[in-house]
């Protein structure tokens, strides 16, 4: 049982580059989330989805985009990478708004 899988685990981007962080879950969960964790800080919600085709902004959505075409996948897109987006990104899924299952994270550096 893979749970929540995030790829890549590490990535270095140059300022202005674009990339997509992949997240897939095999638990048939309707709810999926993207969080970022900056050093010494808590997790900040970027975007979330309550089902295929439905997404909504979290606390810090600027500079990101998401899509949810299937129940399993919830990719996070960075269009024009900036140093402020250097962070660890966590994807999570949930069968209900009562418990989150997290992936192992993607460490992103923008230089």
């Amino acid at each position, binding site marked *: 049982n893979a749970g929540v899988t995030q790829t890549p685990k590490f990535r270095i981007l140059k300022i202005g580059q674009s990339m997509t962080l992949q997240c897939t879950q095999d638990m048939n969960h309707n*709810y999926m989330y993207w969080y970022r964790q900056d050093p010494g800080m808590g997790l900040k919600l970027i975007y979330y989805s309550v089902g295929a085709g439905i997404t909504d902004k979290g606390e810090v959505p600027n500079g990101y985009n998401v899509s949810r075409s299937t129940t399993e996948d919830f990719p996070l897109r960075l269009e024009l990478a900036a140093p402020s987006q250097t962070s660890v990104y966590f994807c999570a899924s949930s069968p209900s*708004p009562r418990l*989150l299952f997290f992936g192992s994270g993607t460490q992103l550096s923008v230089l």
Partner: protein
Amino acid sequence: DQQVKQNSPSLSVQEGRISILNCDYTNSMFDYFLWYKKYPAEGPTFLISISSIKDKNEDGRFTVFLNKSAKHLSLHIVPSQPGDSAVYFCAANPAGTYKYIFGTGTRLKVLA
């Protein structure tokens, strides 16, 4: 505006003693709370939860207490073990929403 606060960035406890991690919140509309544990280079893992209609929930060595009037919850770990050394996050769910607001975390170190 930090709605969920963990004011102690770090805590050191002797093995076998009790660890108490605290969390304060400002929004009275939070109706469900979670505690997560995080090891370096791993994702957070669920530890224990509590609904706002309860004031205590216990699971083995872990107990969460909720004081709604003070908008305060605490996680008690007893007895503490070296393997409990990790960063602990509390998270709160605003009623009627699908999202969680996380605190900044407390790094617990259990000394052998």
